[in-house]
């Protein structure tokens, strides 16, 4: 993806020199033209300033992040009390070749062999994929030291170890063991987590209370190199390293080998397909907050759902349009395609009305009616005769024509 972006950028830049020296001048002209034409130059300027400031701030921040001292806790470049710059400097002074590997690429680039200690101080930026990668890359290392790992780190790094979070902040812990790293009677000032091997096999462990140890040495497995877990993050910070025997413990633990690769993991290395940390990216108050919102919605339902008195029934009357029976009669005619019947009915009605208009009795004989209608409308008698008493229409079209003609005839006889 990076390559692709690079290509695009290059092609853009490639095109610019083709325009030659005229480009800046032309651009200036265009800007001047636009300024002259547009009344909203002030706004443009304002926006330009804002964009410039934003870009500037972004640049400053990246530049600062790349080189300057960090303020991330336990960072080898952080000189503040929470940082660990002191530890790195002292180790370097004692002849240990300290390499800071920021990110996975730097770690894979670092030289790791039997005389190398890989040190991970800040595990919160790790995920399953980067942990697996770390185990792979440090397979050949003399030892891997991890300080106060988060529980899921051990789940992927060395599942044989269980971890317990503790808060023994108050009192210094005295060692009752004697290992290569820790002498009998040495004191460590704080601890945040304690470890225990699942199968309880004998190994180097210190500061042990009820089976859990602040210092635990895990032998190498097929998965990882020898592992040293230190449950106190404050022991290696600038602020605390000088108190108790923190410095001695840290220096011995990390100065075991000639080289120290200080791995500072980065969240940028976590592939997007890795979902193991997805839950940790969410704020801790999300789930309880959602529960509260859900309960509030339930409350809302209780509020809105409680009716103020029951529903009232309405005894509805029967709604029948009076014309409905006639409409269904029409549908019956249509379905039966009874054009003959329609012709009879329409002629009958027209004859009845015409007789009424012309003052004839309803039962007047047909010839008399035809003559009268013919006189009144001016149409020839045979035509009127056909209209009023012709053969029944055979098709829909004939019927439609007859219906229209009858209506026209009625209008002619009685134009009102």
């Amino acid at each position, binding site marked *: 993806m990076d390559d692709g972006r690079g290509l695009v950028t290059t092609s853009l830049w490639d095109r610019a020199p083709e325009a030659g020296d005229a480009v800046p001048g032309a651009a200036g002209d265009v800007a001047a033209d636009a300024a002259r034409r547009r009344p909203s130059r002030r706004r443009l300027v304002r926006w330009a300033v804002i964009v410039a400031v934003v870009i500037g701030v972004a640049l400053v921040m990246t530049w600062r992040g790349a080189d300057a001292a960090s303020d991330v806790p336990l960072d080898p470049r952080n000189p503040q009390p929470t940082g660990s710059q002191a530890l790195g400097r002292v180790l370097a002074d004692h002849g240990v070749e300290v390499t800071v590997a920021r990110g996975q690429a730097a770690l894979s680039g670092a030289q790791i062999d039997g005389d190398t200690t890989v040190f991970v101080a800040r595990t919160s930026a790790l995920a399953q994929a980067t942990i697996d990668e770390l185990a792979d890359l440090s397979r050949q290392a003399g030892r891997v030291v991890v300080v106060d790992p988060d529980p899921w780190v051990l789940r992927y790094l060395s599942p044989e170890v269980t971890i317990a979070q503790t808060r023994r902040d108050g009192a210094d812990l005295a060692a009752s063991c004697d290992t290569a790293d820790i002498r009998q009677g040495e004191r460590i000032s704080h601890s945040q987590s304690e470890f225990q091997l699942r199968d309880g096999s004998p190994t180097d462990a210190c500061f042990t209370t009820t089976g859990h140890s602040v210092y635990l040495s895990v032998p190498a497995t097929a998965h990882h190199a020898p592992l040293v877990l230190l449950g106190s993050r404050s022991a290696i910070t600038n602020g605390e390293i000088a108190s108790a025997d923190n410095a001695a413990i840290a220096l011995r633990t990390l100065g075991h080998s000639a080289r120290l690769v200080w791995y500072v993991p980065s969240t940028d290395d976590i592939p997007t397909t890795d979902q193991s940390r997805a839950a940790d990216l969410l704020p801790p108050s999300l789930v*309880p907050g959602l529960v509260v919102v859900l309960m509030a919605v339930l409350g809302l339902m209780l509020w809105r759902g409680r009716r103020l008195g029951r529903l009232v029934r309405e*005894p509805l*009357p029967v709604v029948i*349009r009076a014309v409905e029976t006639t409409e269904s009669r029409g549908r019956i005619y249509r379905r039966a395609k009874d054009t003959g019947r329609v012709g009879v*009915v329409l002629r009958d*009605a027209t004859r009845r009305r015409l007789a009424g208009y012309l003052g004839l009795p309803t039962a007047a004989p047909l010839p008399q009616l035809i003559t009268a209608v013919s006189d009144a409308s001016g149409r020839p008698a045979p035509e009127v005769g056909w209209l009023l008493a012709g053969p029944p229409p055979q098709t829909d079209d004939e019927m439609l024509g007859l219906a229209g003609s009858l209506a026209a005839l009625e209008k002619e006889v009685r134009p009102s």
Partner: protein
Amino acid sequence: MCRWRGRQRTTLRYVRANATPVCRSRGRKRGVPVAVSWRFPILVLVGLVAVVIQPTRETVLLWLALSIVLTVVDLLFAVSPRRLGIQREGGSQVRLGDSGTTALLVTNTGRRTLRGLVRDAWQPSAGATVDRHRLTLKSGERRRLTTIVVPTRRGDRLADRVTVRSFGPLGLGARQRSFDVGGVIRALPPFHSRKHLPSRLAALRQLDGRSAVRIRGQGTEFDSLRDYVEGDDVRSIDWRATARRQHAVVRTWQPERDRRVILVLDTSRTSAGRVEDMPRLDSEMDAALLLAALASRAGDRVDLIAGDRWVRARVGSASRTALLAELVQAMSPLEPALLEASWPTLAAAIADTSRRRALVVLLTSLEPAAIEESLLPTLATLTTHHRVVVASVSDPALTAMAARRGTTAEAYDAAAAERTLTLRQRTADVLGRLGVTVIDADPEHLPPRLADHYLLLKSQGLL
């Protein structure tokens, strides 16, 4: 659980038309007597702040528990709705289309102040759109809650329960209970045709003060003598009186008074059909009211019989002033019944009402089947004793349908409409041959046509 309301009959044939199946649960199913207000979800939502500060499960549970406990405590402190004395003030009646009011008198008989919401629920057709009343009632205080009703249908519109929701001091929870208080709003027929009344009354006065009626039939009564005025009928000059005085004197006549007009309102199935979105029955009532108003002014006695298989309403021998009020009262609760009219029953009721000759106006529909089956056999005896007029509401949609002949489908419909019109005409002709006058007009024109026919009969002394 379902049972029939109204009188239950053993055989299905005689199930009364207004017997509608009613589902009424026998148990005391009143619902939960509590409610929460909008403050409750807001209170729960405020818990978000606590959760952001301390995002643990315990916080959530604690907050929920707090909210619920607060609400329950609030609820317990709410005044019981039973402490409220509720009465409805008076009954009221409203002419359909007008707005009326109904009032509840609520009294706080408890010792604490009641804050709450009262809903005076009515049937939707009562048109009580704003039936909720906010209420703050101190101990011993009494207030009148007025609900405006605009009924949308004629008849008795019933009140449903009155529901009281009493909030606690925090306004979180509330106690709620419904009470049967009862209440009826009677929506009277609108009597739209009363706009025709002044002109018809003027015509009646003309008739009254006329020197003489053109036809000196048996129905005209001698009133008094007065001076001859140019234009008077010379035949009405009273020669004997003229001989006594210096100038010509004519006899004046007044139209007969104290005749009987019997309005028969058919509430059978044909009256349920809607013409211009109004049941035929309502249009017929309109016509009946106009005629009754006119006839009572003319000094005639008006009776009303309404029924289908049974006589459903009867008004008779009412005084002139009370007549209209009594008529609308009797008409209001009438509904079309899906039954065939039993004309012999109605004819018996007519015979019961008056032995004297009367003008009998049958307000029914010219439905060939209905008329031929039941009315025609009865009509023969009826016409021998009374002058019978059949007033029927015709449907303008029919004539419009008959005139539309643009497409094939319309032509078929036109034929159907023509067929219906022909059948109606044929029925009218049959009735005419029996000596019955048929007035068939659309809802708008039926009342004035009927009134005019009455005036015509009156002026000719044919009553």
